[in-house]
């Protein structure tokens, strides 16, 4: 038996002086540890204390979210979106994240989190601009306090930490909530963001949507940790494991984490256990890496069905409520469909407008070149402009940048 197989050398006593106290960890890891099983409310005795208003609000948002996902997926098939990473099955995570925040707080979404932005009140057409492809961000992040949808995994997490840090330095009680997937927890930026947040005691909540797969790679190939929530302990912040399909449970944990952060208690890592019912995107084939029967076991743990159960028990799932909820969801889908079926208005000259605050001479030349090409195209001569591509400046500028003999 070696010391690796049986830790406990601390029980040995020594007459010699030990390491000076500076080495000691500063916190007791016990309270930081997550529970062994995901935290749940629906179907438990504790569900009785849940506010009926919250339950119906969550339900309406889940139903809208499911319909939104279906509509966005349909728009992809019709060629109206370049790509759509669906959050079908993960609606509880999206909705709970949005509802846990106050207006003054910030949301830092990944590319799969358009529904969280929509649940927060963002216009779905603006939320889908990136995925439609007419620009990278379709909304003003400052106005909505929603950071741009982030495609490089986990890279938005340090932004959330920095923003919350800056807010605290300015004396504002703003909390940032950043969303990342199970795959994203393997990225260096995940580690660095959690470490900075814990060291600075920044008011941030990290929500890991563990949906089982990073495209095709299952969690077992992603981590050897006891759970993703356990990773928090290494940084000195609490980690909490929650049933991500139990909307009231996740809402409660996130709301509590936001409250704690706002009060100066520092960051929290929340792992929401959920499942990606659809493929990674419309370009993915999920049958290559998972079985239909596995998907079916998760359909039985559907976030909407779970909540319906509770609402039915309390006689809250009235015909009237179901009908108005469905109508609201259909209205959202119809509006989205109509507006997405119109071609967006594009101005190619926008390509040069926001690279810098003040355009460089090089960009002015290139903008002039494109303007000339567009003019030639409009005049029916798309083949070439008056001057070659290297000319830099078109005839319209009054002179050619192409060198002339002195």
């Amino acid at each position: 038996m070696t010391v690796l197989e049986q830790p406990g050398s601390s029980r040995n006593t020594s007459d010699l002086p030990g390491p000076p106290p500076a080495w000691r960890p500063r916190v007791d890891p016990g309270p930081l540890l997550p529970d062994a099983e995901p935290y749940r409310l629906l179907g438990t005795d504790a569900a009785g204390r849940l506010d009926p208003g919250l339950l119906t609000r969550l339900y309406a948002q889940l139903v809208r979210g499911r319909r939104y996902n279906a509509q966005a997926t349909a728009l992809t098939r019709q060629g109206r979106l370049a790509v759509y990473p669906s959050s079908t099955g993960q609606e509880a995570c999206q909705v709970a994240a949005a509802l846990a925040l106050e207006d003054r707080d910030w949301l830092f979404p990944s590319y799969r989190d358009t529904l969280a932005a929509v649940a927060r009140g963002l216009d779905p057409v603006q939320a889908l601009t990136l995925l439609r492809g007419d620009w990278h961000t379709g909304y003003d992040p400052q106005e909505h306090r929603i950071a741009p949808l982030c495609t490089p995994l986990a890279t938005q997490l340090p932004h959330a930490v920095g923003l919350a840090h800056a807010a605290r330095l300015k004396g504002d009680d703003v909390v940032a909530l950043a969303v990342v997937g199970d795959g994203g927890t393997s990225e260096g930026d995940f580690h660095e963001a959690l470490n900075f947040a814990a060291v600075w005691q920044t008011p941030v909540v990290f929500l890991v949507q563990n949906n089982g797969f990073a495209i095709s790679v299952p969690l077992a190939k992603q981590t050897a940790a006891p759970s993703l929530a356990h990773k928090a302990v290494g940084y000195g912040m609490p980690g909490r494991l929650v049933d991500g399909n139990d909307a009231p449970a996740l809402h409660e944990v996130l709301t509590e984490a936001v409250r704690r952060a706002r009060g100066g208690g520092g960051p929290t890592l929340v792992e929401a256990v959920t499942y990606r019912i659809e493929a990674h995107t419309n370009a993915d084939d999920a049958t290559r890496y998972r079985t239909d029967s596995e998907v079916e076991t998760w359909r039985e743990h559907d976030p909407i069905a779970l909540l319906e159960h509770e609402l039915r028990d309390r006689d809250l799932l009235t015909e009237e409520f179901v009908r108005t909820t469905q109508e609201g969801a259909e209205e959202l889908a119809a509006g989205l469909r109509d507006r997405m079926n119109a071609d967006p208005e594009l101005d190619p000259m926008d390509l040069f407008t926001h690279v810098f605050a003040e355009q460089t001479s090089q960009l002015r030349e290139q903008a002039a070149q494109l303007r000339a090409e567009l003019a030639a195209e409009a005049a029916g001569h798309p083949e070439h402009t008056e001057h070659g591509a290297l000319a830099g400046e078109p005839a319209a500028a009054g002179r050619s940048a192409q060198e002339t003999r002195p």
Partner: protein
Amino acid sequence: MTTTAPETARKPATMAQALTRALHDAMAADPSVHVMGEDVGTLGGVFRVTDGLAREFGEDRCSDTPLAEAGILGTAVGMAMYGLRPVVEMQFDAFAYPAFEQLISHVARMRNRTRGAVPMPLTMRVPYGGGIGGVEHHSDSSEAYYLATPGIQVVTPATVADAYGLLRAAIASDDPVVFLEPKRLYWSKDDWSPDAPTQVAPIGRAEIRRPGANATLITYGPSLPVCMEAAEAARAEGWDLEVVDLRSLMPFDDDTVCASVRRTGRAVIVHESNGFGGPGGEIAARITERCFHHLEAPVLRVAGFDIPYPPPMLERHHLPGVDRILDTVARLQWESDWTEGCGA
């Protein structure tokens, strides 16, 4: 901001001291300026450029971060999103590489991707270049990596006055600036003094450091003093060389460079960065595109070799020196029968 003192009170300062003064004045002028990085607080930075800032402005304004470059730049992005002006210190050129994803994927394109709604007024200070006897990973010329990314300004001072003036301009800029500090000039002095009038230098303008008639040496940062020395030595050969200090690699001052080359008809670009894929190739192409009929000879380059940065005991062979510059100037086809110069 202008302060003056009697001539007798003027004491020359080093480039490092001018940078410290620039940070100090920027922090005093604007409470949204925050300095952050490894060892920048209590220690004052490994080159002491942030010396005294934490003491004067507090550790919230000049903060020691955890040792993680991506985390430093990534959190600075979030701080800039909330209206601060972070000034990030990367400890050495080669230690900035972990921050590349944040720089390329976020810093450089945040303004563009949000149609101007989220500007990135942050400055990333990077001590760069060789010549100080640094061991591996302490002497890289990393400017070409930054220049390959649209959306960031790349600035490098070569004089003490510019160290002050360009850093003030970088911090005041509403766009991100990679501010490259030539390590081997940290201890250099010229006629700038903290008591003398201090001026903000505009980003994007090159400066003619030495007028000349026969050929133009185009350079920046650590190679400027070498070029000035070479230009002096060239007089003995009968060459009157003009020296252009670019100061800003992006935006690039085509006008000053091309006006000079059109006057002299010959150009040599000098930098420590390796030649293949280095800034010199781009500059030579720009000159050729714009000044072809004024050129008496091909545009030549004196650059670092295309090798990983050498160990300190061999670096003098790698760095552009006066002799190599003069040898290159000699190849600028001075003879009337220009074909003689071709094989050189």
